[in-house]
């Protein structure tokens, strides 16, 4: 990247990327809102347009600072277009909207190019720039400009942007402009104005009220009221019906004379503007488009000169602070991880403190001291818990961040496929760990693409099936206990279990023998098997990159579970069940064969005394009836030991684990306690071992493994191949000192 300024410190660069990405995301989000407002027939929402404009403006400034020339150039052109849009100079057509969506995509690619992740999309940028320029040139020729009217700079200079926009819109729509002048006694001005408003409203729109005079009169005030109206002056006068109010039409300037008003009085300044005017154009010096002027002056595009002329310049030389007052900070998630780790260490200190306190309390001589120390310990523990939840809260971000991007994909894919798709999103406000959000975007992207590509039928096929032309893809998220559930549902053609089975057998993924024992639901789940693809010729979209097996692996890595339900002709629903956070978990510690393990509380339903007499065998697997439901049971001692330890006579316990809709009973030797632990990764040597999500330090120098419940359930319940629980991957013995 020749344009990357390599001397920019890393930290600043990171902030630049993070802020730039936020701006681009915001751009995309606003565009969707804009499209919606256009499609619903309301026309573009001026505020949204303005937000987009400002975002791009900021991005331009940022990229300028970081020497990202492409980014800055693109932003500059976009800014001009957006300015034209927001000030109503050009209409927001579908073509323009498409260009803006393209720009969002390109922004993303340029940013990742700047990070060195991919080549810069130079050609696409040039194409887009050319299209942007073409649109700007299409500006309608008969636009009425405010400056063509005989309005004093003093009047124009105090219009807010919105008022100016209303004024321009009205003039463009061909309405006439009137100036109402009246003197109002200050004591009764409110009621007098209300009455005037009531009279004027039916025939026109009041643009603004401008107080004139210098406040020298303590009892009355002179007002100038600008009104745009379709009516003739006489009609307006009749409507106003008051001799005290003078109604006069604001005429267009005689164009044979100077075409622009004198520069506003307030624009006197001594140096270049301290404030960058948002449209990026220079504030004009008093323009002179006189015939006598040298030709280069009159070559200024007249509309621009007019537009700019109504803007007073920023006052320079004054002691002004435009410091933006912001109340958010951006933090690298790794810093939060470090904080979290430090918190883990503090928990160890807390554990030691507790042990010493207990010890002191147990000795009669130091009992008092021990009690006091226990009190200190409790206070410490409370603060720790607060810190922990505080840090966790900071890590949480709304899923909407990812969903917005997906909405753009839906738009793009359905266009490419010529399918009509209604994308419904609910639960975007559901919060989840930032790290999980980042890992989610690829799998979700793929699921959504699949839904449109394979699920939603082409319009003729839908029509033939008696379905509405427009298909629906619904994305729904909600929190369920310590989990976040995300559902992707479509009303497409569904997955045919027989076709899936056939395919799996043909591909040699499943033997003919096994195939016969599959239930229909199990057959549908085969789409998650590695190497499975439902189409011989993968389309440009879903065929690229990752398949459903990767979706499943990615989700499993996050400690989540994927479920699929599909009905032919009705549609498909894929459900992701994810933990809310990766960083910290509440666990139940328990003992199996003298080793301590942890079970995440989020994955367990209950723990009860185990009654071995209730266990029976079905198809070579142990099950028991628990609370009226058949529950598969696995003896962890057998699972973790090689060879299996002899069954004990002593009392054992049953932990009922549950992820999504699947449950599994696990038999353990002894329950210890509930506590919060910080999960640490297993590291390279043990990372490949399935069945464990990580390890943790229990605070008394003991390390304990944390069960990966989704993968355990997966292992133990995989019905099809009747894979035994003593699967090699789990037959790793974790004894003391391993």
């Amino acid at each position, binding site marked *: 990247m020749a344009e990357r300024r390599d001397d920019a410190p890393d930290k600043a660069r990171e902030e630049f990327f993070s802020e730039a990405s936020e701006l681009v995301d915001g751009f995309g989000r606003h565009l969707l809102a804009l499209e919606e407002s256009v499609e619903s027939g309301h026309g573009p929402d001026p505020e949204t347009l*303005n*937000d987009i404009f*400002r975002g791009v*403006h900021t991005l331009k400034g940022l990229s300028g600072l970081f020497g990202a020339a492409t980014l800055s150039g693109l932003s500059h052109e976009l800014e001009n277009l957006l300015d034209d849009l927001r000030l109503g100079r050009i209409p927001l057509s579908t073509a323009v909207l498409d260009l803006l969506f393209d720009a969002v995509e390109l922004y993303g690619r340029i940013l990742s190019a700047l990070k060195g992740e991919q080549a810069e999309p130079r050609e696409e940028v040039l194409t887009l720039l050319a299209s942007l320029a073409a649109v700007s040139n299409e500006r309608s020729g008969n636009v009425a400009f405010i400056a063509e009217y005989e309005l004093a700079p*003093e009047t124009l*200079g*105090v*219009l*807010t*942007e*919105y*008022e100016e926009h209303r004024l321009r819109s009205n003039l463009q729509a061909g309405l006439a402009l009137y100036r109402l002048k009246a003197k109002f006694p*200050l*004591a009764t*001005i*409110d009621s007098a*104005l209300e009455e005037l408003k009531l009279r004027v409203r039916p025939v026109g729109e009041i643009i*603004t*009220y*401008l*107080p004139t*005079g*210098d*406040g*020298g*009169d*303590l009892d009355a*005030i002179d007002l100038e009221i600008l009104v745009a109206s379709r009516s003739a002056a006489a009609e307006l006068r009749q409507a106003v019906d008051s001799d005290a109010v003078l109604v006069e039409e604001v005429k267009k300037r005689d164009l044979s004379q100077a075409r622009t008003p004198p520069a506003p009085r*307030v*624009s006197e300044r001594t140096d270049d*503007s301290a*404030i*960058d*005017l*948002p*449209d990026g154009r220079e504030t004009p010096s008093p323009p002179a488009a006189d015939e006598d002027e040298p030709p280069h002056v009159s070559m200024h595009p007249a509309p621009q000169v007019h537009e700019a002329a109504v*803007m*007073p*310049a*920023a*006052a320079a030389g*004054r*002691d*002004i*602070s*435009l410091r*933006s*007052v912001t*109340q958010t900070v951006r933090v690298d998630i790794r810093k939060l991880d470090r904080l979290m780790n430090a918190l883990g260490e503090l928990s160890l200190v807390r554990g030691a403190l507790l042990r010493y306190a207990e010890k002191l309390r147990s000795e009669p001589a130091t009992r008092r001291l021990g009690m006091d120390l226990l009190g200190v310990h409790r206070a410490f523990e409370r603060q720790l818990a607060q810190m922990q939840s505080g840090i966790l809260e900071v890590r949480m971000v709304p899923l909407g961040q990812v969903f917005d991007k997906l909405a753009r994909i839906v738009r793009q894919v359905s266009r490419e496929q010529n399918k009509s798709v209604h994308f419904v999103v609910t639960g975007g406000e559901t919060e989840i760990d930032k790290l999980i959000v980042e890992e989610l975007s690829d799998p979700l992207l793929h699921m959504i693409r699949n839904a449109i590509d394979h699920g939603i039928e082409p319009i003729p096929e839908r029509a033939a099936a008696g379905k509405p032309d427009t298909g629906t893809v619904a994305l729904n998220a909600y929190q369920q206990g310590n989990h976040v559930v995300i559902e992707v549902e479509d009303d497409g053609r569904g997955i045919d279990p027989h076709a899936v089975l056939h395919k799996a057998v043909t591909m040699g993924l499943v033997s003919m023998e096994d195939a016969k024992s599959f239930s229909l639901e199990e057959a549908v789940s085969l789409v998650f098997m590695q190497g499975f693809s439902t189409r011989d010729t993968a389309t440009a979209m879903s065929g690229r990159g990752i398949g459903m097996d990767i979706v499943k692996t990615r989700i499993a890595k996050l400690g989540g579970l994927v479920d699929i339900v599909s009905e032919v002709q009705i549609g498909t629903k894929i459900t992701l069940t994810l933990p809310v956070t990766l960083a910290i978990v509440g666990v139940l510690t328990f003992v199996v064969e003298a080793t301590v393990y942890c079970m995440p509380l989020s994955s367990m339903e209950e723990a009860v005394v185990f009654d071995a007499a209730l266990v029976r065998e079905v198809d070579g697997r142990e099950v028991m009836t628990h609370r009226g439901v058949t529950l598969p049971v696995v003896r962890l001692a057998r699972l973790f030991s090689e060879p299996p330890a002899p069954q004990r006579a002593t009392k054992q316990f049953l932990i009922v684990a549950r992820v999504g809709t699947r449950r599994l009973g696990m038999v353990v030797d002894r329950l210890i306690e509930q506590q919060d632990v910080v999960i640490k990764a297993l590291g390279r040597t043990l990372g490949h071992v399935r069945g464990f999500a990580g390890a943790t330090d229990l605070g008394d120098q003991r390390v304990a493994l944390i069960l990966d419940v989704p993968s355990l359930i997966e292992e133990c319940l995989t019905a099809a191949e009747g894979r035994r629980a003593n699967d090699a991957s789990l037959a790793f013995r974790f004894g003391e000192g391993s």
Partner: protein
Amino acid sequence: MEDSASTRSFIRAILEGVPEGVLAGCTVQEATSGFDAMRLLPRGPYDLVLTDINMPDINGLEVIQFVRKSPHHKDTPLVIISTQTSERDIARALALGATAYLRKPFVPEELVATLERVLVPKGGAAPHG
């Protein structure tokens, strides 16, 4: 001046609660609209004017122009408080003679700091307005 009653009382509470510095012991007078301001302004000396930009009828920019034209107040510090996010309007307000700008939402410290900054260069006399 400010058309939202809750914002007005919020600002009043902050300003009247300042324990020390130029703002300590200040008196706050509220105007609920531009017209209200027109009524009040010509009647007394004020040490500082605080106004919103987006208000019904007379907007903040018009207020600034009015204040600056008035012989009483051509040098009175004038601070804009507004959710108005348009940079063009900020630029315009400053061009018209506003002294400083504060974006909503703000925390009390920001308001106090901004006002103290614009008040101090004026000789540091305790304001009565």
